Each structure stands twice: as structure tokens, then as C-alpha cells.
């Protein structure tokens, strides 16, 4: 088995476990509390409006925005890690059919693995830091995956033509 295939298969399973482990931790320790915060802050915001207390309404809606921002990113990171892990494993299984040299195959596998790791990580880090670095990490990760996947598609098409 080539290094590229091994990287995609082992890396894919490891990422799937990371994604599932994170999902399990999140479901047990954080999700319910976060969903309660979303619901409670929204209800308090409108209760504030009913009491003509615009300050309470505004601060509650800001809390709602923050909680929803975090919740959506946590769920996205969990889903994307597992989804990308499955893509790595599928590609890993059939990677020997790719019409490229071993060196190129390894570079593509590395790019796919790094992209699959970094993109959800960047999304997740946005919950801790609203600055440009996590966003740049997510963009870099997604670009690595998309470019490598486009090259893999060409590689499979080449191998098909050559056979």
C-alpha cells in the first residue's frame, strides 16, 4: 500500500473518530446548555420588548446572536470533520487508480488531509476568536481540499483514458 493511500485511510479514520468524539463530547456537555441559552435569550429579548425595556431586549438579542454563532460553528465542525473524513477514506481506497506519479499522489493526499483537518478547525476556532486568523485557516483548508479534489478528478479521468 502506497504512502498516499495509507495517509488517506488512516488519516480519514482518525478524522472520523475526532469528529465523532467531538460530537459526543459536545452532545453530552455543551449542546443542551447552548440550545437553552439560544431559546432563553430570544424569549427574554421579546419579553423585554413587551415590558418596553429596550435595553433588556437589545442585550438579550446580542446574547442570542453569540450563542447561535457558537452553536452553528460547533455543529458545522462536527459535520464537516466526519464528512471530509469519509471523502478521504473513499479516495484512499481507490487512490491507486489515479493517473499520477507516486510523488504527486502523496502531495495530493497530504493536501486533502491537511485541508480536511484545517477547515473544520478554523470554523471551530471562530467560536474562540472572531478575528481573521481562524477565518483564514478555514479558507485555506477549504481551498486545499477543493484544489486537490479537482486534481484528483482529473487524475481519475486520465487513468480512465490511459486504460
Amino acid at each position, binding site marked *: 500500500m502506497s504512502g498516499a493511500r495509507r495517509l488517506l485511510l*488512516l488519516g480519514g479514520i482518525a478524522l472520523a473518530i475526532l469528529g465523532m468524539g467531538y460530537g459526543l463530547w459536545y452532545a453530552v456537555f455543551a449542546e443542551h446548555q447552548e440550545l437553552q441559552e439560544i431559546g432563553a435569550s430570544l424569549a427574554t*429579548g421579546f419579553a423585554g*420588548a413587551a415590558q418596553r425595556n429596550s435595553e433588556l431586549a437589545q442585550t438579550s438579542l446580542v446574547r442570542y446572536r453569540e450563542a*447561535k454563532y457558537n452553536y452553528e460553528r460547533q455543529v458545522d465542525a462536527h459535520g464537516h470533520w466526519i464528512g471530509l473524513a*469519509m471523502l478521504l477514506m473513499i479516495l484512499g*481506497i*481507490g487512490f491507486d487508480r489515479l493517473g499520477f506519479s507516486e510523488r504527486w499522489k502523496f502531495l495530493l493526499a497530504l493536501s486533502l488531509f491537511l485541508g480536511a483537518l484545517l477547515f473544520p478547525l478554523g470554523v471551530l476556532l471562530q467560536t474562540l476568536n472572531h478575528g481573521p486568523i481562524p477565518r483564514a485557516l478555514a479558507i485555506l483548508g*477549504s481551498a486545499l481540499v*477543493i484544489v486537490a479534489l479537482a486534481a484528483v478528478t482529473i487524475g481519475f479521468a486520465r487513468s480512465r483514458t490511459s486504460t
Partner: protein
Amino acid sequence: MIKTPSSTKSLFLRHDMASFAPLSARRLLVLGGITLILVGMFFGDIFAVFVLHQNAARVGRSLSRAAHAAIAGDDSAVRSSFQDVGAFLENRGTKVDTHVHVIDFGYLALLLAILQPHVAFAESRKRRFAWLFLLGGVLLPVGVFLIHYVGLLYSPLKSIGWASIFADVGGLFVIVATLSYLAGLWKHFQSAERISVQDELMADRSASGRMLLVGGLLLVLVGFAHGAYYAAADLYRHEAADYTILSHLAAGAAERNTVAVDQSLADYGQLQGDKAVKIAAHTHIIEFGLLAMILMFFQPYVSFSETWKLRWAGVFLLGSVMLPLCVLLELQYGLLAGGLADFAGLLVILALLAMWIGILRYTGHLDAAAGAPE
């Protein structure tokens, strides 16, 4: 019917009698995995037709009640309306989670089935992990589905009910089984005999397999490009609009401005619809692409003629393109696009069911050959 030359066929059957034997880990994971996907897709179609839109309308009505209660200064009615919103959203959320998890466990089961010859454990051990995986793959979605109905009844915990606990146990089973297979793979890579593992599934270069591979890759690529475009053009705009519209809604209610409240409610409904169709199109096109690529590996097990395998692959890909496209068009064309999306979902389910039946026929051939005298 298998249309391969008899000598090749018997050689292939002999090889698969070991790797695809009755109740072997691979057979359990293949048939169990496709069953999970079929159940998840069927559940998704039922949910889309009978629950999704009705539930969204109920959420909208409750939000409207909350806003109008705020105009009237009725604090308790506001809170009670938001309790309804929370219940409707939980109902929707748990059903979406059930749909997604059961399908994803099916995908993972199929991937683990492909990897079985490389897992360096005894067959009996691999079979136990396969049962554990499938048990977890059923327990988690069933637990998630029941969360809305069981709630906190008899729960020993403050915010987590029994259904959630069982769902988490199911998730743990899946993680343990997957980790064990990873350990088996690691052991295989460390062993000296790893080069001797041969798998007929990897040698398939049939036209239906190629069609599924290239079609699947293109679907995934289009889905990624659409996701990147969504993240760049819509994600932050949607998030900002969500907060702004709700702020206007609350401010309008505080000022007793019914016109402003009704306008904000309409804007909010439009925003949620726009967001929902874009995310649904993105996830479905990628999921179908991944599934097409996974199914490519199992084409040697689908016991139909190559012509019929090509037809079912075509039906699968047609449904996979149509569904996300029609979902995207739902905001412009309403029920017509929604109906077509449901029909496309049915095409995908039919094609997958046909492949499942083809694999079941293959197991019949194998078992009959295993029982026949030499």
C-alpha cells in the same frame, strides 16, 4: 443474472465465499450499511413531505404570536409562544439529526466493509465489532428521534433525558467499533504479510463503476464549490440579517408598530427559507456524491447484467443532480420544485434499493455455491 464467463465467475465466487461469507463482518456491514442509508433516506422523504413545511409554518405562527403579544405588552404570552417555538424547533432538529446520523452511519459501515480484508483481526472479532457498530448505528438515531417525545421523563439528570442518554451510548458503540477497526488496520500495516492481501472489489473497472466514480466526484466538487460560494457570499450576510431582523422585530413590538412587526416577520421567514434551501442543496449534493463513489466499489457484488447496473447508476445520478437543484429552486417555484425534489429523492432510494437487492441476489449465489458439492 451474473454475465461473466463461468471460469472467472467461479473463481470470483470462490474468493468471495471467504470474504463475503454468511454473517461475515463484510456482509453484515454492506447489507446493514445500505439498509441504514435506505431507512434514513426514506425517513428524510417522509419528513420532507409531511413534517418539514408544516413545522416551519408553526414556528412562523408562534413567532408572530410572540411579537404581537409583545406589542400588547403581554410578557407571559411572549414566553409561552417562545416555548412553543422551542418545542417545534426541537421536533424539527431531532428529526433532521435522525435522518443525517442514520445515513452517515450507513456510509461509514460501507467504508468499513471495504476495509475489512485489511483489518488484521480474526473474523469472529471483526464480526463482533460489526454488530457493535450496527447496534450503535441504530441506537443513536432512534434515541435522537425519541428525544422530543420522551423529554426529561424519569431522567436522573437536569437537562439530559433517557433518549439522549441512549443516543450517546449508541454514539459510543460506534466510536468503539470504529476505533477497533482502526487498531486492526494499524496492526495490518505493521505486519509483514500486508502485501499478500488481495481484494476483488478493488479490481473492478466496470462501466457502471466508472460512471458512479466520475459522477460522484463531480457531484462532490460542485457541492464544495457551492459551499465555498455560500460561505463567501451568504453565510455572514445571513447571520447579520438574522440578528438585524430580530432586533427590528423587537424594536417594532416595543414601539407598538404592527406594520413594522409584520414586515420583519415576513423578512425573517424569507431569510430562513433562503438559508434552509442553500444549506440543504449543499449537503445533499455532497452526500449523494460520496454515496455514488462508495457504491462504485460494490458494483461487483450487484448481481445484475452490466446494462441494468448502468441503468440503476444513471437513475441514482439523475436523482442526485435533480434533488439539490430542485431544492434550490423551491423559493422561486414553490410546491412544483418541492414535489420534483421529493420525486428525485425517490429515484435515489429506488436505485439504492435495486443495488441492495442485487447484492442480496449475489449472497444467494454465493451461499448456493458454498453448499453445492465440488
